[in-house]
């Protein structure tokens, strides 16, 4: 029997779909089957959070989650959830769920680190932000080149709530990421920064589905990354400016550096609009370095390969700077395995510079 026993259809699906021959509408993923499904027990506020991972994928994630992490922030006490995935000795699967409720005016944070060696990891993160609440969520995927990570994320924001979502995808054979966010209350604000690296035969598949329902809401999605080798990346980003969301603004932008002969980059940036008093925009720049850019940098002694390496290192250093307090060892370890000791030392420096933490570079005397 194959190591992969279950096929999940529609893991990431665009809400507004297009020509099927483009093979961009959704993705299919093979994952290990689950011989002992469990019933996921969640509080009602978490169950009400909309998710867009696709029914089969979400069902697979849910039935593998036996002990969901729950956090609740109040105005007096902030909750912080930290979920590490993949670090389970001898297990093929490591799936978890993290749910965070931020009560009125509260602040909370959630951090999802998928970095261990388990072949398949998965996580569902649910957030509910009440009036005036704010939260920061960081997701890091730094998996071995033969590993799979399936991530589902959903958030509901009430009036004046603010959510900042940061995602770094450094590596994995396949990463799927389905992000849903509903800006229900007036002036709710969602920002997301996604940075990724794709190399070899890696596949990165991302869906954003943001609905702006309240008045004067704001959504800003930024994505940038470097694709090398024969990496394949798909980004579907939908912003839905729903009737009634007057005064709202939605924006998507993407920059992709294509740096491999076998790279395939697919982008579907969608804006749906049924309200006139809004602003929606998206922009994408996809391509190689221009002759002007390479010429200028060559005059400074940098080859094209140097420039691509620098761009990739910038993504790693950014992750190390942001997550240095909780995941520097994982980032440095991944970088050493994927890009060598020099790159990992630099990542360690980037983390130490910001956080003052000191990290041993695995395999080296420090």
């Amino acid at each position, binding site marked *: 029997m194959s190591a992969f026993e279950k096929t999940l259809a529609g893991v990431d699906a665009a809400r507004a779909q297009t020509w099927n021959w483009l093979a961009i509408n959704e993705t299919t993923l093979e994952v290990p089957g689950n011989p002992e499904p469990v019933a996921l027990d969640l509080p009602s506020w978490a169950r009400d959070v909309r998710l867009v991972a696709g029914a089969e994928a979400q069902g697979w994630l849910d039935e593998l989650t036996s002990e969901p992490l729950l956090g609740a922030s109040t105005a007096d006490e902030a909750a912080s959830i930290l979920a590490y995935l993949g670090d389970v000795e001898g297990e093929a699967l490591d799936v978890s769920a993290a749910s965070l409720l931020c009560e009125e005016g509260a602040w909370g944070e959630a951090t999802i680190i998928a970095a261990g060696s388990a072949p398949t990891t998965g996580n569902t993160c649910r957030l509910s932000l009440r009036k005036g609440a704010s939260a920061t969520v960081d997701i890091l995927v730094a998996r071995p080149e033969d590993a799979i990570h399936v991530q589902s994320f959903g958030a509901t924001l009430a009036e004046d709530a603010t959510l900042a979502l940061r995602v770094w995808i450094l590596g994995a054979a396949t990463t799927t990421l389905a992000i849903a966010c509903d800006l229900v209350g007036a002036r709710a604000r969602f920002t997301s920064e996604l940075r990724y690296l794709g190399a070899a035969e890696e596949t990165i598949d991302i869906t954003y589905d943001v609905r702006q329902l309240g008045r004067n809401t704001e959504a800003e999605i930024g994505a940038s990354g470097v694709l090398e080798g024969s990496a394949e990346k798909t980004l579907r980003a939908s912003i839905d400016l729903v009737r009634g969301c007057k005064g709202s603004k939605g924006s998507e932008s993407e920059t992709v550096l294509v740096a491999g*002969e076998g790279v395939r980059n697919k982008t579907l940036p969608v*804006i749906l609009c049924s309200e006139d008093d809004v*602003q929606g925009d998206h922009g994408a720049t996809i391509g190689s370095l221009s002759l002007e850019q390479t010429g200028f940098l060559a005059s400074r002694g940098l080859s094209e390969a140097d420039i691509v390496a620098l761009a990739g290192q910038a993504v790693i250093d950014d992750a190390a700077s942001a997550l240095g307090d909780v995941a520097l060892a994982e980032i440095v370890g991944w970088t050493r395995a994927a890009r060598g000791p020099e790159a990992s030392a630099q990542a360690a420096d980037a983390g130490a510079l910001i956080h003052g933490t000191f990290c041993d570079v695995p395999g080296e005397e420090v």
Partner: protein
Amino acid sequence: MSEASAPRKRSEVADVDRSLYDFVKSEEGYERFDDGLSEEIVREISAKKDEPEWMLDLRLRSLEIYEKTPMPKNWGPSIEGLDMAHISTYVTSGADQATSWEDVPDDIKDTFERLGIPEAERTSLAGVGAQYDSELVYHNMREEVAELGVVYSGIEEALHEGWEDVIRAHFMKLVPPTDHKFAALHGAVWSGGSFVYVPAGVTVPYPLQSYFRLNAAGAGQFEHTLIIVEPGADLHFIEGCSAPKYNVANLHAGCVELFVGKGARLRYSTIENWSKNMYNLNTKRARVEEDGAIEWVSGSFGSHVSYLYPSSLLMGARSSCEFTGITFAGGGQDLDTGCKVHLAAPDTRASVATKSISKGGGVSTFRSSVVVTPKAERAKVSVSCQSLMLDDESRSDTIPAMDVRSASAQVGHEATIGRISDDTIAYLMSRGIGEDEARTMVVNGFAEPISKELPLEYAVEMNNLIKLEMEGAIG
């Protein structure tokens, strides 16, 4: 009510005054095939045209494909109101095709005169083809253009006048019946349309125009346009279409196949103004060879439902595509328009600029695909899409897809959706311009990059359409 809490003002726009297009002529004495689709009907159409065997085979194969092919369930506007069992695929007045307007039956001539076609032919065109329901009723070309070796005729005539081999080599080769359900339908029941052949090195000094008028209620129009522009040649082709409004569905499933040779240029302009009971499921595609250029100028104003995405296959090195389009969706309209570009050779270039306007509950969707294959080294693509919402009953969506597989390509994309800014209107009003006029000016300015690409008389027609759409009180 305080000024701060007062609702924002917006245009309350009236329905389009379609009297220019919305007139009906009697069908008395016309030949009309039974509604619905069957092998018998397909054979009858073929027999009527005395076609070669291979064309009948193509029709029958297409019918088979049509019956087996489903409509996509996951995208596109609904076509539930279209019932093929109530569509006649062939209607003709029985009039012979004329080369002089004097020989065209009076009621049909009157139709085209009201649409301004003979006048346009006299003043600014190199040739005109006029189709009424399923058949061409008029086709003519200036003598000096014919002397250049240019061929402009109906497809059926060309098949019988020495062009059969050329037509067989090109007909439904770019848009095969397997392309989608309505391409298959077209293959089965096509009738009328134009064949244009421009010899190598010839520049046609004035545009050629085909005008398609669908007069019959509950009928379909399935014209086929096949244009071959040989290496180094240059042509501007204009296509216009309209129909009166009925309370039953009409169908347009035409097909346009354009072959642009090495170093040749073809500009294909369309002002589509079908009535708002029309299902416009049209397919247009161009294949462009080395150093060739295709330029699309497309204005979509009419129809109840549209699926329209002119596509460009850039197969030759340094070939290029420019697509300039505008879509104006009013009440009762669901217009899904855009374009497809496939770059498959080094140093190819594509530039897409579209505008869309939604008002009165209309739905406008911009849908596009840009595919850059690994062969398209150093390809450059820019896509720009701007949408204007005139009220909060309407809808405007942009769904652009990009698939980049070339490491040396550069692709840029930008899109915006918004409303007319209050500051702009306030500024214009401070200069003594009324609010109504100010809004119309803004919309005309929004559409200006498209209208400037059209010959003057068509730009005027487009601006008039916009003006009509914008007429009305300010709420």
